[in-house]
């Protein structure tokens, strides 16, 4: 029988995906579990294993297409016949010879152009419920051309939707960019004025504004528009922590871990979050409540070639620095390879972004909505600093100083809280022992 494969629901929020690769061709035999598609959603790239064993009958998408959940992506000819399908064979897609048309006796359409259904040579009516037929009319779909999935070849609403989607696929990819205009920006975003024709000043390249890039844009716009951002900056003397890091680096590398400032920062932040739970929260305007989360999942901003991705490390408070060093490293690698799973991007309560690795110094960050705060780390640089010994004598010494910034949602927390929060983090990062002692 014919079986069609639809874009599955990939979890909350995701309603569409871009086709990255199609490792199979039509006519090709596949076993259940073989990868038949690689797609990219707003959140992650996903490999899709075949649910059927049989041969690929028809591939209804091509690379670069965007498919909506429920769309039929390909159809299969499966060997095992399902019980419902005993009675009939799939209706022919070919058109009937035209002499049949002449026999049709119906009042002459006064203005055939008005006809709601695309003129199709009439043949035995396609089994479909009235509501499905109505939908077909609305989408201008000819039921005869739809691959049925219902019991005994009945065309279902989904079949019609899928067909309509497939039809929208533009023939020359060149136009694709034209048709795929930027996705819905959040309501909060201002509607942009139309752009001038840039080519008047020189050659331009138009790159599709898609998937992760677009998701980032939407997320940032929403966050910036919705949250009154405030940030407070400070410097951390990480001379001793750096020494500590150097000391233990190697042993962690041995177990494929990487001891980075981020890892320490995560621990420090976890501690601070426990002291000041309101930084580990979300604001629920609908119910007028602040949702304080009792778990501590920290997102780390990772810069991948297709853009900013924020994998979440769970239960940071319950993991040792070592465990974290390994997990973070492993996660980052997967993200960079585009192999991360969607679930990994979800459920964060706080985010850390480390510009230091790339050499960034002072900067500001945008909160990862719906979280209430984000911590930014700059690059530690040797700088002259004034030290005061226990006898009150000052001396200027070179120290490793790291700029640090906490951006927070002023609706939920105030500047004073932020300072206190930051103090905990700084204290922990300036003194590894402090870190160990206070660590919860």
């Amino acid at each position, binding site marked *: 029988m014919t079986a069609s494969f639809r874009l599955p629901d990939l979890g909350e929020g995701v309603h569409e995906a871009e086709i990255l690769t199609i490792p199979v061709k039509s006519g090709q035999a596949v076993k259940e579990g073989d990868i038949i598609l690689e797609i990219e959603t707003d959140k992650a790239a996903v490999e899709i294993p075949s649910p059927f064993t049989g041969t690929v009958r028809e591939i209804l998408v091509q690379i670069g297409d965007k498919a909506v959940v429920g769309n039929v992506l390909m159809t299969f000819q499966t060997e095992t016949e399902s019980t419902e399908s005993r009675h009939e064979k799939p209706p022919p897609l070919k058109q009937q010879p035209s002499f049949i048309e002449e026999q049709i006796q119906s009042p002459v*359409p006064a203005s055939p152009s008005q006809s*709601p259904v695309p003129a199709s040579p009439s043949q035995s009516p396609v089994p479909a419920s009235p509501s499905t037929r109505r939908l077909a009319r609305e989408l201008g779909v000819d039921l005869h051309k739809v691959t049925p999935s219902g019991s005994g070849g*009945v065309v279902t609403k989904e079949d019609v939707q899928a067909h309509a989607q497939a039809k929208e696929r533009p023939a020359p990819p060149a136009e694709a960019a034209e048709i795929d205009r930027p996705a819905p920006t959040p309501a909060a975003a201002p509607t942009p004025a139309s752009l001038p024709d840039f080519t008047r000043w020189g050659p331009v390249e138009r790159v599709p504004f898609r998937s992760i890039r677009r998701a980032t844009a939407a997320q940032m716009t929403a966050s910036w528009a919705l949250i009154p951002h405030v940030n407070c900056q400070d410097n951390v003397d990480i001379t001793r922590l750096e020494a500590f890091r150097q000391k233990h680096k190697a042993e962690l590398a041995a177990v494929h871990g990487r001891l980075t400032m981020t890892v320490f920062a995560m621990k420090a932040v976890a501690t601070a979050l426990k002291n000041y739970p309101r930084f580990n929260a979300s604001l629920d305007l609908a119910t007028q409540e602040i949702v304080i989360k009792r778990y501590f999942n920290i997102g780390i901003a990772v810069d991948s070639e297709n853009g900013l991705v924020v994998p979440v490390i769970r239960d940071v408070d319950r993991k040792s620095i070592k465990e974290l060093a390994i997990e973070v490293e492993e996660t980052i690698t997967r993200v960079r390879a585009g192999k991360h799973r969607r679930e990994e991007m979800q459920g964060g309560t706080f985010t850390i972004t480390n510009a230091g690795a790339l050499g960034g110094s002072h900067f500001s960050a945008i909160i990862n909505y719906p979280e209430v705060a984000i911590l930014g780390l700059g690059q530690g640089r040797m700088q002259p600093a004034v030290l005061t010994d226990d006898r009150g004598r000052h001396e200027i010494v070179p120290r490793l100083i790291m700029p640090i910034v906490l951006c927070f949602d002023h609706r939920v927390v105030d500047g004073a809280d932020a300072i206190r929060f930051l103090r905990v983090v700084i204290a922990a990062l300036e003194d590894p022992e402090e870190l160990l002692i206070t660590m919860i």
Partner: protein
Amino acid sequence: MVMGDMEMSTDLLVIGGGPGGYGAAFRGADLGLDVILVDPLPSLGGLCLHAGCIPAKTMLHLAELIHDAEQATKMGLRFGEPHIDLPALRSWQRQVVDTMAEGLMTLAKKRGILCIRGKARFISSTTARLEGAEISAIRFKHAIIATGSRPLVLPHMYFTPGGRIMDSAAALTLADIPKTLVVAGGGYVGLEIGSIYAALGSRVTLLEQEDRLLKGVDADLVAPLQESLSKRFAEILFGAEVLDAAEDPEGVTVRFSRNGETDQRPGEKAVIAVGRTPNSDDLGLDRTKAVIDSSGIIQVDEQQRTADERIFAVGDVAGGVMLAHKAIREGRVAAEVIGGKKGGFDVRALPAVVYTDPQIAWCGLTEKQAQMEGISHAVRKFPWKLSGRARTLGLTDGLTKLLVDPENGRILGAGIIGRHAEGLMGEAALAIEMGALAEDLALILHPYPTLSETEGEAAAMFLGSPTHITPEER
């Protein structure tokens, strides 16, 4: 208005307040259109409600009661001779009609539809002039014509109000119960009216041009009816082509030609029900782009749109079977198209019911049609004499049959004769519209003992193993 023209503008002008008209108006209003409906009658409902289906069905119910009372004597239950209080019957009939009409008016009012009493004629593709109304003209964005149809009149014959030669509407007012009644036309109108008068005591003579009743309905469905009517009607003459009818103080004489010879039947009164013709004349359609065919049917596409893109036509005036439910649907489709939706009339199981006793109902493909159009089909019939329920009711002359596509077992049509066929037809319609297989219908569990079993059984016959009939009997 004593001076000048009051021109009113609206999104949607609906001409005609019958089922097609109010179906369209209500749907249009629900889609947010500003709707004006024009009809010469003071309230909605059209001929169907005021002088057709509803008055007829009200009386047919009584006819059924009378008949059942007779039947009951066989079962050992005896009622006295029915006493017929004509004024009371009429006021009951009126009461039924008025309540429904009021209901429709309230529905219209609640929807903000302006109902204007008057006659509308197009003067252009955008304007209609009104006659007998405060408003002189209505400028519309779209118009829907739902003016219905009227009884066909034979040459040299005319209906005079209160006269002895009646059309169906006049007959249904039950002015009196003539001792003898000649009914010209063996279509469902003729049969229903004949049945009413027969039950009320008239000796009914039926004249039918064809060689059987209800041409167009499958013969096997009609046969039992023909039998029972032959008992109730004094005389049924087939192949009788009515020529004319002459009225005199004593009565009417209906002349007809039969096997080449002219013959005639006298009667106290006569009903002429030889068909209906669409009310498309006198609409000023010549001032629009709309096209009507030789028989007066306004030509429309599957969106009910005429050749004039602003003007739509629905119901009897747009041709097809002349049934209220079809008109309502067409009206709704037209309104939806006007309201910007991609509506279209694609009914696969258009049900039809003849309210005789026994009733005949069918939907979807009929055997006749299948043969004519050479559509491959298989038929199974389940006779009611094998139905327990039919037995308990003493209604064993019924028959339930299904047509399916032999290729895939999909149900294409259904026909039923027998009491309550009207209700049974619903299931068949559902099955056809949903693209169900005979197997589906057979697998659906039908309560025992009910008449609905007959449908399950007929379906089961396709699978080779019905319960109350042996496979051989196929």
